[in-house]
C-alpha cells in the first residue's frame, strides 16, 4: 500500500437551522493513499459533499460548523491550521472541482486568466510570461484543441465538456497532492463523461495525485475508483476496495443500490420484470430513527437495529472491508 496522504477521523459537521441543529456528517472516517482514488457514493443529503467541503475548509460558517474530528494531511490536522496556512494548501496542495462548470467559472474573465490566477496566488516566483506559458500548457494537457486561441475565450464560448476540462486544468495547475472531484461528470452527456473520466485517470497516472470522487453513479465508481465508501444519512455504512463492494456487498443499502441499476443484457426490461428497489425514502435528518438510520427501508432489519443500543458502527469484516450493520448480508 502506498503512502497515506489524507486521513479523516471521526468527522462531525453540524448545521444550525431554524428547526434546530442538524448533523449532516456524523462520525466519518476514511483515508486516501497517494495515487489512488476513493469514491464516496450516496444519495442527495447523505453528507458526501459536506465531507469533501470540510477537507477544503469550505463549510460555510455560520450556519455550518465542524463540531469534532480531525482531518490529517501529511501529519498535520487541517482543522487546527491557521487560515493563512489553509490558504496556501487550498487550491495548491488540495484542489477541488465542482459539478456545475458554468457556475464555478467566472463569466467575466477569460478561461486563461482564471488558470493564471491560481498560479499567481500559489506560485509567486513565476513571472507573467511563465504563468501564461504554464496556463497554456495546462489547457493542452487537459486536451483542449488550439489552447492558444481558447486561452482568450470566455466560459460561455465553451461547451460543457470543455468547461469541465478548464476546471480540471485550474484544479491541477499547481500539481496538487489531492484532487477532490464533486460530481464532476453529472452535468455532462455520456460520451463527454467518458472523455472526462478517461482524462482524469490519465492525469492521475502522470501526476500521481490522490483523487476523492464524489458521485451518486455506481457505474462511474466501478470504472474509476480503487476504494469505495458508501454514505447514508451522514454516516459511512460500508467501505472496501472496489472489487469487493460490487461482488460481495454486505450492507443491505449497498446491495439495494447496486441492484436498482438496470443492467444491460440481451433480454429487455419487459422480460426481466420489475426492477429491484429500496422501498420508502431517505428519512429527514431532523427526524432520524433511533438505532440504524436505514431500518425502515431495510430488508434485513432485526429488533437490534431498532433498539436502544444506538446506531451501528463501522466494524471490519475482512481486511479492507468494513460495514456498519447489525445484521450484514453474509458471505453466502
Amino acid at each position, binding site marked *: 500500500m502506498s503512502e497515506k496522504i489524507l486521513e479523516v477521523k471521526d468527522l462531525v459537521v453540524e448545521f444550525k437551522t431554524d428547526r434546530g441543529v442538524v448533523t449532516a456528517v456524523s462520525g466519518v472516517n476514511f483515508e486516501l493513499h497517494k495515487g489512488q482514488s476513493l469514491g464516496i457514493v450516496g444519495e442527495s443529503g447523505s453528507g458526501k459533499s459536506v465531507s469533501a467541503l470540510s477537507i477544503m475548509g469550505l463549510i460555510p460558517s455560520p450556519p455550518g460548523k465542524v463540531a469534532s474530528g480531525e482531518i490529517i494531511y501529511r501529519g498535520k490536522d487541517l482543522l487546527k491550521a491557521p487560515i493563512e496556512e489553509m490558504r496556501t494548501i487550498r487550491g495548491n496542495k488540495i484542489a477541488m472541482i465542482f459539478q456545475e462548470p458554468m457556475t464555478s467559472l467566472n463569466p467575466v474573465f477569460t478561461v486563461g486568466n482564471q488558470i493564471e490566477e491560481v498560479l499567481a496566488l500559489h506560485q509567486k516566483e513565476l513571472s507573467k510570461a511563465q504563468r501564461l506559458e504554464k496556463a497554456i500548457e495546462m489547457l493542452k494537457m487537459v486536451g483542449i484543441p488550439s489552447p492558444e486561441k481558447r486561452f482568450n475565450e470566455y466560459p460561455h464560448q465553451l461547451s460543457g465538456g470543455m468547461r469541465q476540462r478548464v476546471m480540471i486544468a485550474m484544479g491541477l495547475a499547481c500539481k496538487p497532492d489531492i484532487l477532490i472531484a464533486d460530481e464532476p461528470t453529472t452535468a455532462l452527456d455520456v460520451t463527454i463523461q467518458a472523455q472526462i473520466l478517461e482524462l482524469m485517470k490519465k492525469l492521475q497516472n502522470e501526476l500521481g495525485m490522490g483523487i476523492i470522487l464524489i458521485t451518486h453513479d455506481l457505474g462511474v465508481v466501478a470504472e474509476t475508483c480503487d476504494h469505495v465508501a458508501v454514505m447514508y444519512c451522514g454516516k459511512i455504512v460500508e467501505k472496501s476496495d472496489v472489487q469487493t463492494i460490487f461482488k460481495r456487498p454486505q450492507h443491505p443499502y449497498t446491495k439495494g443500490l447496486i441492484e436498482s441499476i438496470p443492467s*444491460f443484457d440481451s433480454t429487455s426490461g419487459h422480460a426481466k420484470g420489475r426492477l429491484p428497489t429500496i422501498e420508502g425514502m431517505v428519512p429527514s435528518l431532523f427526524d432520524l430513527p433511533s438505532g440504524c438510520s436505514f431500518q425502515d427501508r431495510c430488508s434485513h432489519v432485526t429488533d437490534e437495529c431498532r433498539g436502544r443500543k444506538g446506531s451501528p458502527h463501522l466494524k471490519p469484516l475482512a481486511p479492507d472491508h468494513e460495514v456498519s450493520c447489525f445484521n450484514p448480508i453474509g458471505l453466502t
Partner: protein
Amino acid sequence: MSNDFLLDVRNLTKRFPIKGGLFGREVAAVNAVNDVSFKIKRGETLGLVGESGCGKTTLGRSILRLIEPTHGEVFFDGVDITKLEAEKMREMRRRMQIIFQDPYASLNPRMTIGSILAEPLEIHKLHNGKEELKRRLYQLLDYVQLPKDTLNKYPHEFSGGQRQRICIARALAVEPDFIVCDEPVSALDVSVQAQVVNLLMDLQKDLGLTYLFIAHDLKVVEYISNRVAVMYLGNMVEVAESSELYGNSKHPYTKALFSAIPKPDPSGHKGRIILEGDIPSPMNPPTGCHFNPRCWMSSEKCRVTYPEVTNLTETHQYRCYHPIS
C-alpha cells in the same frame, strides 16, 4: 392494420429561426428535429435517447403540439392532429399527456395537491359533483401509491420521488391513452428512480397506456422500452427493439453511446469507444452525416450526403453508410 398503431409520425420537422440584424431578418435556423418518422403501437413503450441538444424534447413536445411542428404529420389514432383547430386539439389533448423532468418546477407551489389533481378533471368536465371528484382523486392517489392525506398538502411537503408520483397522477387524471415521459426519472436519486420506473411499468400494464419515454440514461430506457430510437443532432439515426439495439447496434453512434456508459462492474472493462470532440452546434451541423466528424468509420461519402434509412428488419432501421457488422 393502421389501427395497431396509436401514433404515426411522418416526416416531422421543427425549425427554429434565429432572427438578427437591424430588421430582425432570419439570419440562421436550427433544425431541432429533422424529417423524423416513426410509429408507436398501442400499449407499447418507445424509448427515445440522445445527448443534450439532439432534439428529443422538441420531438416529444411537437407530437403534442406544445411546440408547433414546421412540417410533417402526426396521426394520433388515425387523426392528423397537426391540422386540428384549437378547440378540437384541446379535446384531443385529454388523450395525450406529458410528464416533465423536473417535479419541482412542474407543480404550482401555491396549490394543494387536491386542487392540482382536480384541475384537469374540471377543465375537461370529467366529474359530476364533489363526491365523485373525491372518489376519483383517491383512486388517482391509489394508482401512484400515495396516502389519502396527500390531497390537503402542498408540493413543498414532498420529496422529489413523491412529487414525480403526483405529476404522474395528474397526467393520469384525464384517462389518457398516450403519455410522453420527458426525462421523468433523471432528477431522482438512484433508489427512487427504480421505484418510479416500476410504477410507470405497472400503470402501463393496468391501464393499457402507450408511452414515448425520453431520457438520456440508456440503462433506464433500455429497461422500460419495447423499442428504442436514438437521435443525434435532430435526426433519428437508429431504431430497433431494445434487446436488438444493445446486442446488434448498427450505427457507430449507438455503439459509442452504449460503450460510454459506466458499468457497475469493476472487473468488466471492455474496449471502450471514446468519441473525439464535442457534439457540434445544431445551428451549424456538419455537411453529410452529422456524426461524421466524430465517427471512426466515416468516409468521403459521409461528408457529402446524409444516408437514407436502411431497413435491416421490419423493426430495425438505421441511417448509416458504414453499419457495424
